[in-house]
Structure formats: C-alpha cells, structure tokens
C-alpha cells in the first residue's frame, strides 16, 4: 500500500491560483490514511473558503474513484468536462495517471507520497513512476515525475543523454522470476516534461531553477 501525507493547503492553493474551476478527486484504493470522498470534500470546501476570503470566485467539486492508478477505471468513473484543473488526493501515481487520461486539464498533487509497500501478486507490465521521495514536485513538472522517471533523478534536466526523446540508459524488463525478457530505452522524463509544459503553456515551470532536493526526507527506513 501507499502512504501519503497532506501537502500544506497554501501549496495546493498556489498551484490552482490561475484556475476558476477545480475538481478534487479522491482515491478509494490503497492510499493510507484514507483519501476518499470525505477527504476530497473537506479539501474542496477549504479551497472554496480560502478563495472566497481572497475575493476570488472558484467552482469546486469533489468526487472519488475506486483506484486512481487504473486508466480504464478513471475513464469510466469521472468526467472532467467543465473543469480547468484537477487536484488529486492520491499518491504520485494517481496524479500521473490522471494527467495521462485527461491531458486537457492540469492535474496537481494534494499529497506528498511518503513510501510504498509491496503487494504479493499482480499481472501485466509495471512501470515505476513514483519513488515516494516525500516532497512531491509533480506540480512543477507537468505531472511527470523526474525523480522516478529520469535515470539520474535530475531536478534541472534534460541532460546530454537525451537522444531523440529517449534516455541513453538501457533498462531491462524482467519477468516475475527476475529473468530479463527485453532490453529497452525509456522515454526521457525531461523530454516528456518539456513537451507537456509547452503544450499547456507553462514553459515558465520548465525554465525555473529547481534547488537541490532534500534527500533526508527519502532516507529510510522511515516511520510514521
């Protein structure tokens, strides 16, 4: 299962400041403590109150889904029509899957993903997209995580190893026995980030200097 901690509400408000309609999406999946409809509604009303106090109108609604990490489930369970921004109550995976499923809106994280446990059994390909670094930066990188998806976890990429949008570092795809099935080159995370931010007119977020990461937050074994 995945453990998350709420981000400070000021940070969430700063993400959504340019937008007039926001959908807060909870997750009934493995995220703990619970981040379902109740928690989504609570955040939605906090956003509404804070914006009202500032005299800025905002339309906010809350909903939830079975699991934000399921592409099919997300497509069937929610509709983002009429919203300019989405705030995800899920882990870093949820924010990224929402970004993939609804590219027409910007999705922001409401949580810092703290760490990830393991499951006994699953089927199909798995992709690493969140390393539970404890200080989520998806709000600055177009909903694509460079900590998990860049081989060097660069804060200010891309590096010279980005060739035609691919990372020069080869990765092995392994089966459940640990045998190598295929060797592939992943997409360069910073190439994806650049394209994503350009697409949504936020190259200012690409251009900005991101200071060194506080790796102390990711140093294990962690406890809550």
């Amino acid at each position, binding site marked *: 299962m995945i453990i998350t901690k709420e981000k400070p509400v000021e940070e969430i408000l700063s993400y959504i400041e340019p937008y007039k309609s926001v959908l807060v999406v909870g997750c009934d999946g493995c995220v703990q403590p619970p981040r379902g409809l109740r928690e989504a509604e609570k955040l939605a009303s906090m956003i509404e109150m804070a914006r009202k106090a500032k005299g800025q109108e905002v339309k906010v609604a809350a909903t939830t889904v079975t699991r934000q990490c399921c592409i099919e489930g997300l497509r069937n369970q929610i509709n983002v029509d009429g919203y300019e921004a989405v705030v995800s109550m899920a882990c870093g995976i949820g924010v990224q899957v929402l970004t993939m499923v609804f590219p027409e809106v910007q999705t922001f994280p409401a949580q810092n993903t703290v760490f990830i446990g393991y499951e006994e059994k699953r089927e199909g390909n798995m992709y690493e997209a969140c390393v539970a670094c404890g200080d989520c930066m998806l709000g600055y990188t177009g909903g694509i995580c460079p900590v998990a998806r860049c081989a060097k976890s660069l804060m*200010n990429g891309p590096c010279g190893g980005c060739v035609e949008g691919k990372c020069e570092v080869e990765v092995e795809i392994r089966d459940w026995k640990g045998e190598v099935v295929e060797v592939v080159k992943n997409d360069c995370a910073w190439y994806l980030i650049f394209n994503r931010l350009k697409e949504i007119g936020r190259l200012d977020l*690409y251009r900005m200097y991101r200071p*060194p990461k506080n790796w102390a937050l990711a140093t294990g074994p962690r406890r809550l």
Partner: protein
Amino acid sequence: MVLMAKERKAFSNLMKAIERGEFVYTGELEPHRSIDLSDVKDWATTLKNTGKIIAANVTDNPRSDSAISSLVAAYIVQRDTGLETVYQLRTADRNRLALLSDILGAAALGLRNILALTGDHTKIGTTPAAKPVFDFDSAHLVALIHNLVYEGKDLDGNEVHGPKPEINVGVAGNPNMDPLEAEVLKLERKAEVGADFVQTQVIFDVEVARRFLKAVEHIGIPVLIGIFPPRSYGQASFFDKYVPGVTVPEEFLEAFKKFKEIEDKERRKEKINEYNVEYFVNFIKEVKKEKACAGIHIMAVGYPDVIGPIIEGVEK
C-alpha cells in the same frame, strides 16, 4: 541572490581574456586509468607551445569510464606545464559533501576554472553495477560554486572559513538538442544561477553553430564553440553516426572518403590536414561574426598538426 553576468568577476586567465574581448581558444586533455600523466603533459605542452591556447579542459571520467582524478590531473598539468586548466567536475558519483570538498581543494591548489557537468550514467560505463549518485545536477553545482565564491557559503548556508575560493564556472551547451528551445531555456537557468561561460558539444555544421549562437545571444553569456577536426574518415563518420545529434555535412564526409583512397600514408595525412585547416578556418571565421561567440573549444586530442595552422588561418 544571484549576481547579473556583468557584475561577475574574472579570476582565471581564460575569463580575463574573454572579458578583455579577446577571441579565445581552449583545448582538451583526457587523462586515463593510469597514474602516468606523461602523455597528457606532453599534449598540454604542445597546446601551450602554439601560443594561442589559453587553457585546456581536463576531463572527468567521460562516458563513466573510470580514470585518474581530474582534480589531481588538472593540478599536475597546470603545475608542470604552466598551461591553465579547466577542471571538469561531474556531479555524477559525488554528493554535495564530496563536491564541496573538491571545489575547495581545487581552489586551494590554484585551479581557477571549473566546468560544471552532470556526467554520464554509471550504467553506460565500465562499472555499471555501481550505485549511481546524482545528488546534484550541473545547475546545482553552478549555484554551489557561485555561492562559495560570492557568499562564502554552501547551498545549506554552511560558511567556509578564511578566504573565499576564486573560481570561474563554465557549463556545457548542446546546440544539437532537439528541440533547441529546451536547451536555450536550460542555459538561461544555468546563467541565472551563476554560469560564467559555455563550452559546446562538437559542431561540424556552421548553420547549427550560427542558429545556436543567435538563440542564446540574449542570455549575454560568452560561448566557446566546440570543434573536433577528425584525423580519418572513420572518425568523421563516427561523429555523424554515433554521437547524439551531431551531423557532419555531406561534402565533408565525401572529401574524407576520397582521402581514404590515397595509398601513400604521408600524402593522405597531408591532404586531410589541408582540408581540416581550410574547413575549420572558414567555419571559425563564420561563427566569430556572431556576438555570442567568445572563442573556440578544440577537442581533438593528440592532433597537433592542424591546431596552430587553423588558429593562424583565422587570424590572417
């Protein structure tokens, strides 16, 4: 607080020359996995004797192929040959603690230039099982050096005792990046946190160089364009085929293909040298017209025959 480019100080001979408006030339030295630096020093002496190369870069484990410490090599070369060095420092394999130690060490040894690089991933090198360390990236390293030089503090606010280090910091530029806009914004970012100069990847195509120089002119950072006169058709086509983004103009490759057919070794060498000198003299004369171009970084290692003649040809 980051100082604007014009308020920055020049500490190295390289930076002082750039500030005086001189068109500068830098060379490259590649120490190996060996404690014997004699060939590196010989090459440094050759570069120095041209009278035109103001400084030479000393590479730091390129392609993550382990070699002698570039800090030590840069110091020994500078001490024994009198040629100023540009100490290449990769953030790869060093966390912020190790980087700080190396920067202070470099300053104490009298090194005045650092080229701040992120570096290749361990997985593509000679020790792929190593634990990769990417605590800082090149932008962080630039910011760290800038803070040490101007504030006497690291990025966590820890103070350096005694005098502040006096170092100029360069960064790499990739004119072959597609899209180029991603690279330009990246250089703006690096200039903002304190980069003093840029040295680019190898370029053969004058149009690529011109396009890049125009695109970064607004940043106001001096750029040294990277060139690599090849010694054979094999070397030229290697760049074209295997170096990411680098294209070698067709007529260049065609000419080298023809030289391959010359049987007499000396005659072949002579023809290649002549072609390189003519090609790169014209290339440099063209890029020199661009405002952002402060000089040329010649990466060809161990090919002394053309370096002097190319520079003389440009100055004629």
